[in-house]
């Protein structure tokens, strides 16, 4: 690399007239963004709606009595809380100079998937139900498709919240809130789907969580490109 000892013109601290004009034109009082966890709470009604609405609309899973209140509602509430925490982490990541380290991001995502696996195995240990023969694909399609559809609105609202900041790594924020949205939906959907077979749960339900994570990253990428021309 070549270096010279010339002073760079960037060291001037006099505000250029053009920049001053541009700033003055758009100058109005702004309210600083609230803390990420407070903004994540915006999605709490969605989570509550999923937890209450899925059993109300589709019906409570047939083996609810066998699974028991603690494992059924308690684990769903835990998944809901973790999903909210992931969305909070995404909103944290979206603010400049508050980027999460790569190990922290990997840990958060692994913990999200790990929680899902743990909930699946715990439920299956108490009430083992299997997919009727030759209906695997049908059940997979229903659970995967409905979960992704239900996750859509949560994904869009989370994306809008993240875009209100300035996500410097849009894909990272997108994956985090995508997985958070997926866990929120899964917290509600498992109250209806009575299949506890780990293969079904991990492929259909887990697949929808992964699909929403990927969609979150894509949505954020497209959103940022449209919004800020990146």
């Amino acid at each position: 690399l070549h270096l010279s000892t010339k002073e760079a013109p960037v060291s001037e601290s006099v505000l250029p007239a053009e920049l001053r004009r541009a700033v003055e034109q758009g100058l109005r009082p702004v309210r600083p963004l609230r803390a990420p966890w407070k903004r994540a709470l915006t999605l709490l009604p969605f989570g509550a709606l999923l937890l209450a609405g899925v059993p109300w609309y589709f019906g409570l899973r047939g083996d609810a009595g066998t699974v028991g209140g603690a494992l059924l509602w308690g684990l769903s509430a835990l998944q809901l809380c973790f999903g909210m925490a992931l969305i909070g982490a995404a909103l944290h990541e979206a603010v400049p100079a508050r980027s999460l380290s790569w190990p922290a991001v990997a840990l958060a995502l692994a913990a999200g998937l790990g929680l899902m696996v743990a909930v699946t195995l715990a439920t299956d240990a108490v009430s083992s139900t299997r997919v009727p023969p030759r209906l695997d694909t049908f059940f997979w399609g229903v659970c995967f498709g409905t979960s992704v559809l239900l996750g859509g609105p949560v994904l869009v609202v989370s994306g809008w919240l993240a875009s209100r900041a300035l996500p410097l790594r849009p894909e990272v924020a997108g994956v985090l809130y995508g997985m958070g949205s997926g866990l929120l939906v899964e917290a509600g959907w498992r109250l209806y789907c009575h299949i506890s077979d780990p293969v079904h749960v991990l492929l259909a339900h887990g697949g929808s969580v992964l699909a929403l994570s990927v969609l979150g990253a894509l949505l954020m990428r497209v959103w940022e490109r449209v919004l800020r021309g990146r």
Partner: protein
Amino acid sequence: VNSTTAEETHLRDLMVQYQAGRIEGFEQLYAALAQPLGQYLGSLTRDAVRASDLLQETFLQIHRSRHTYSPTLPLKPWAFAIARHVYLMEARRLRRLGAHEAPSEDTLPDLPVPAEAEDWASRDQLARALGRIGEDRREALLLHHLFGLSFREIGTLLGIREGAAKLRASRGMAELRTLLASVHQGGARV
């Protein structure tokens, strides 16, 4: 430490004024931040003209994103993160266009030199040696030793762990010492 805290408090107050819609706040922020941000952009781009353009773009982005600053947090890492972002977007745009040209020697900026390293060699030798350090290590070194960011702040700015930021800066410093030692011993040109 106290002067850093006082400086941060002052910057925060200015930012709060600016967020309240007062141009004086922005003017004073510009006066306080233009030089360090310009030096930082110069160290990233190694092109004085580009750095100057990116500095203006950085302040425009700061203006558009001023609501994302929380007065409970230090301002400098936030402003540096936006400058880095503007640089990365520009670099990505240039890559897409395939228009990356090496700057001419007339436009190369002087790399800023940390004060504590000034005793080791002449400013020119230091700047040349800094130019030969790996980008990651140089960035962490300058952010800490020149611009006064803590390793934690550097971590949140670069998306790495605090320990990794510390490691990069200390390796950069060790590399700088080695390069300068070779100058003193063998008279090799840095």
